[in-house]
């Protein structure tokens, strides 16, 4: 069978060859503990930077009596906590009702 010698096909073959050689090495790299540590450090640095930006923008917004993103986050967490308590109470009520139904 004649080999396709068009530039597009040759480019494709070169890419496939590169994938065959590089792919496993890259996967090995991303699987390493070192990669996990670097990723964690990068995430931590990103979080610190974000906290710093939030702190500064919060100061500015609070100065003008405006809510900041961190206020919304606090509110979301508090609503989440309330929702959890409602779920817990609902479950207790259901359990109590089930126990009541089982009594002779």
């Amino acid at each position, binding site marked *: 069978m004649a080999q396709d010698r068009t530039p597009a096909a040759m480019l*494709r073959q070169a*890419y496939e060859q590169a*994938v065959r050689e*590089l*792919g496993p090495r*890259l*996967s090995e790299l*991303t*699987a*390493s*503990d070192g*990669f*996990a540590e670097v990723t*964690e450090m990068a*995430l*931590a640095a990103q*979080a610190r930077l974000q906290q710093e930006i939030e702190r500064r923008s919060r100061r500015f917004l609070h100065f003008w009596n405006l809510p900041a993103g961190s206020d919304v*986050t606090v509110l*979301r*967490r508090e*609503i*989440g*906590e309330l*929702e*959890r308590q409602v*779920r817990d109470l609902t*479950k207790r009520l259901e359990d109590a009702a089930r126990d009541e139904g089982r009594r002779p």
Partner: protein
Amino acid sequence: MSERKTLVEEVGDVVGSTRRRLRNGTRYLLGLDEPQLGQSPRELVARRDKVHLYRYANDDRRLAPPLLLVMSLVTRPTVFDLQPGNSLIERFCESGFDVFMLDWGEPGPADAENTLETYCDEYLPWAVEATTDATGAAGVTMFGYCFGGFLSFLSVAGNPDMAVENLVVLATPIAPERGPEQLRPGRFASASSFDETGNVPAEAMRTAFITLDPLAEVTTRIDFWRRLDDDDYVLAHKVMTGWGNHHIRFPGATARQLGALFADGRNPIVDRTLQLGGRRVDAANITVPFLSVVGERDHIAPIATSEPLLDLVGSDDKTELRVPAGHVGLFVGRTAAKQCVPGILDWMVAHSREA
């Protein structure tokens, strides 16, 4: 004469191809014609917190017990019902099953403290009860995919009285310590892994999957641009990326719990020392007919991660079905429709009865 005709045809082909490339490329860049996923008609049967239980419309429900599909916590359950003609739910309905599906919803701050116990001892038993209540059946066939299989497995092991008649798990990594490093539970358990809602962000989950094979993402994009004139390919690409790129947050407490359970390469499920909700959960308690489906090319949950399943369960009737497919290819696509799904259906039909 024929040479001239070929030339005309060739020019016509190039013009047609270029026109399709322009049309598909423009639509893709503008985000037009996004395919609708999960179109099979269904009704909401029950709801608890963020969890929804759906029942699929089917005029030909002739098999019992009803089927309860349990999705992973990592992605949306639309993978069970991608498109008409490429839908596992459609196949199940056509085969006569009464199909229910559990949608976990997107975890928010209220779900950040959900643990394995929340899913295995509360939501899943609730879903089984809601399914049997809706159908009047004595039990269900529980069908879990990926981490949904993991949850189903632990739920049935920890609640042997639950009304489950058959248990089917697909690509279920019960031994994650034997799987890819990038998806080991410990990788998502550190403090920096959580977002402002207290959960592992969807982007972190997506990145972990991409790092399994970083060049696959590039190859997919190259293939897409190369085959931009192929309408069927473009649609299939949009369908798969529409599902595959939409990961959801993973509950924070579950991530921490998994990190602790599987720390230092330990596996309390395989060691039969797992404690959930203050009691020992032993897979030997699973005595119902059991099917594990594994993909020979699965790089997310490789065969080694599912291998212990059969030895762990106490069922006399247990089967492992190995199919030549990857993680999603177990039930999505043409090859799955011809090679994988029929094997799963045969087992399920053999373990069902007339409704």
